[in-house]
């Protein structure tokens, strides 16, 4: 089961909306497409919305953490949003607590977080410095 990955460009950011029940191959396809899109569009930030995901198990959690790591290597920030209380409890008890992944409750707060990182972050400053 492979569906098109909804990746939306919102200003300097990419909005990735994960929905439904995804098998492992689809999750890995999304990983490839997100990293390709960041490279292609030179996005500054990536917002990953998982509020529509039926299940976030250890595999999905591991790939999400991997995406965040790859996006960082590509010079962009990312935020994971939309983890509801049931998924938060489940991930914590499972032992996949996504410790190093930046999260926000809602998409709106996630966007604000990306803006904040952009304005305050050393990453942006370093980019400007290197252009001088």
């Amino acid at each position: 089961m492979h569906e098109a990955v909804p990746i939306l460009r919102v200003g300097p950011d990419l909005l990735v909306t994960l929905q439904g029940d995804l098998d492992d191959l689809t999750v890995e396809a999304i990983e490839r497409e997100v990293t390709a899109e960041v490279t292609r569009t030179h996005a500054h930030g990536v917002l990953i919305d998982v509020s529509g995901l039926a299940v976030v198990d250890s595999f999905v959690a591991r790939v999400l953490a991997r995406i965040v790591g790859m996006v960082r290597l590509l010079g962009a920030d990312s935020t994971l949003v939309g983890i509801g209380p049931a998924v938060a409890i489940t991930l914590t008890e499972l032992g996949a607590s996504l410790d190093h992944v930046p999260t926000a409750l809602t998409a709106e707060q996630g966007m604000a977080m990306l803006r904040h990182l952009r304005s305050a972050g050393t990453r942006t400053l370093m980019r400007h410095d290197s252009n001088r």
Partner: protein
Amino acid sequence: MTATVEASYGGTPSGPPGSAVLAPVAAVTIDGEADLLRVRSALRTEAQAAGLGLTATTKLVTAGSELARNILRYADRGHGVVTVQQVTAGHRSGVRAQFTDYGPGIADLDEVMRDGFSSCGSLGIGLPGSRRLVDEFMIESAAGRGTTVIIAQWDR
């Protein structure tokens, strides 16, 4: 002579005394990636029919997803069978699921039930993690004869 290890973890697989199977059994043959979705879907359907809450349902579906993936990754050619059924015990209702494969089996159950153990470089949270998500967890395995895991989740 080959050594076999059989051990059980957690509560009785059939639930509290007097528990009875309710609805017909939903069976999913594990044969490929798409079957992971069928297992999750069967678990969710039965959980909702049994009146489990959102958190109990999410935990059950997630545990089932981990166990079904174990079959896909480790069992002989990734083959196995998952059955899901509603159960009742007194005024409680719940869901019981059985995951069976005829793979290589697990030689040391104590080892794989320990947090952080992994036989293939993944996170190693599969079995102990799944066990924490459900009310009942029973595993039985013999080297060379496959593995059976039975889990159950109750409405409260």
